[in-house]
């Protein structure tokens, strides 16, 4: 029981704070924080655990979003089935792309993903205009039917749903980090050559990690689609390709709660500063430069390191006090 509490406490505390924040902060802001942090956790896993930097996350986000949108616009009205359709589309897409991409070195991987995001953008904007409606996008807010228990057409119910999804997803990533597979991911990042000498295939481990990360990114796309009731090519705009990486670095690469803290900081700064001045990205840029020059662990990573140091200091000081003189 105690062990279960120890395992869950971080997740419960973090998302309880988000739930409390819901009482004081505007609902759209909290909903966006939840969806954006779900969007970022896949990028955080790829970058922090596997060592792959991807500028193509909007592509996977868009596949999830359009998967949901196609279902809700053309075929059905149940948002849960729409989300399932989007996640399935994201999973299949990642599975198709993964064998081609994960063979590449990290720098090429970053660029080929960026190219993919651009391709998906133009596919949705121009090539598939008959079914995507081009720049106008697909509007299906009124198509979505109310569902029992959690009615996703209501933003307040959507918040609870997104919160539950986030808790499950964070628990999943925490579990994965603690498994042999998690250790394999880290090992392939640290030294891919030596990893093979143990009898592992880098390709298989990276493929699995890629599919997991981008399926969760697609899940964020599905949530965006249901929450907004519309999807347009803007979701995979080339100008937004760096967003998840910025948030990952801001929060702390490879830390469990970095994506959540980074998203709160990023979305908060954007909302607060953009009301005062237009160029809010400038501030984010300065903050990123500051973080990278002073503490590469990011906001959450830095706070976690400082807390650990303080706890260690307190423990040593207690031990010294207990020692008989």
């Amino acid at each position: 029981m105690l062990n279960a509490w120890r395992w869950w406490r971080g997740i419960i505390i973090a998302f309880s704070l988000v739930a409390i924040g819901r009482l004081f902060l505007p609902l759209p802001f909290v909903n966006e924080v939840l969806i954006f942090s779900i969007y970022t956790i896949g990028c955080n896993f790829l970058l922090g655990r596997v060592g792959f930097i991807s500028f193509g996350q909007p592509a996977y986000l868009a596949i999830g979003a359009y998967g949901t949108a196609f279902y809700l616009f053309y075929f059905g009205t149940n948002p849960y089935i729409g989300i399932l359709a989007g996640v399935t589309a994201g999973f299949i897409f990642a599975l198709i792309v993964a064998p081609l991409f994960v063979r590449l070195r990290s720098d090429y991987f970053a660029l080929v993903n960026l190219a993919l995001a651009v391709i998906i953008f133009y596919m949705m904007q121009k090539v598939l205009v008959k079914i995507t409606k081009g720049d106008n996008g697909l509007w299906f807010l009124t198509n979505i039917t109310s569902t029992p228990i959690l009615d996703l057409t209501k933003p307040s119910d959507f918040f609870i749903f997104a919160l539950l999804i986030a808790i499950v997803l964070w628990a999943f990533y925490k579990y994965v980090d603690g498994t042999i597979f998690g250790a394999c991911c880290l090992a392939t990042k640290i030294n891919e050559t030596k990893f093979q000498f143990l009898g592992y295939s880098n390709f298989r481990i990276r493929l699995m990690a890629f599919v997991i990360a981008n399926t969760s990114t697609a899940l964020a796309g599905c949530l965006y689609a249901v929450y907004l009731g519309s999807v347009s090519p803007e979701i995979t705009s080339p100008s937004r390709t760096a967003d998840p990486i910025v948030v990952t670095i801001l929060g702390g690469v490879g830390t469990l709660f970095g994506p959540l803290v980074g998203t709160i900081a990023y979305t908060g700064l954007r909302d607060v500063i953009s009301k005062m001045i237009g160029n809010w990205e400038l501030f984010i840029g300065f903050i990123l430069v500051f973080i990278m020059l002073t503490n590469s662990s990011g906001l959450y990573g830095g706070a976690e390191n400082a807390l650990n140091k303080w706890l260690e200091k307190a423990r040593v000081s207690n031990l010294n006090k207990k020692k008989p003189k």
Partner: protein
Amino acid sequence: MTNSFSSLEVIQLNAAYGESKVLFDINFKVFPNEIVACVGRNGSGKTTLLKSISGFIKLSSGEVNIPNHNLVGLHPFQIAQLGIKYVPQDKKVFSDLTVRENLELGSYASKDYNWEPVFNYFPKLKLLLDRKAGFLSGGERQMLMIGRAILGAPKLLLIDEPTEGLAPSIVTHLRHVFTELSKKTSIVIVEQNLPLICALANRVYAIREGRIVAELTTPDEITPNVCEPYL
């Protein structure tokens, strides 16, 4: 394929780094429970030989056989899965993982979760299980790398300069470990430490400029005095 009596047979092996040829017509055999040492100067091709056997370097020509398998063209991970474990020279462990996680990686790959033999050879590792491997000393790292490699009862261990930069007490300990290990597996060891080689090896191959120039097989030949001219 190799005959059933030898653990490894290398036939007419040639290897190159791009245009630069490094190994020329290497032939040798390793028999079960044998310790075979390769000696030679820096740059003579000893490490390249181990990397060629373990699949890290593609051969220009030649064969590398173990019983029932030809290793040529296999990926390093497939060769490791066949029980040929390579312990590289640079003592780089997975530094962000704990000793326990490093051993778990070895266990999961080889499906051998019994760590007792590892702790029998290296009792210190048991005390360091929760320490990040990046904080281990050079000797402890070498223990971890060898401990991880012996999980799954490998058929052949390829060990590259295991005592380089280690304290004499650890070298002595490793010597006992290799002697014990050779009762269960064959070992190919690349080493510059001649007293150690001469105490351990059943056969010694001297390599010079990518060619085997001598094969020392009798106890009278395997002495520091005889080996020294090849270094």
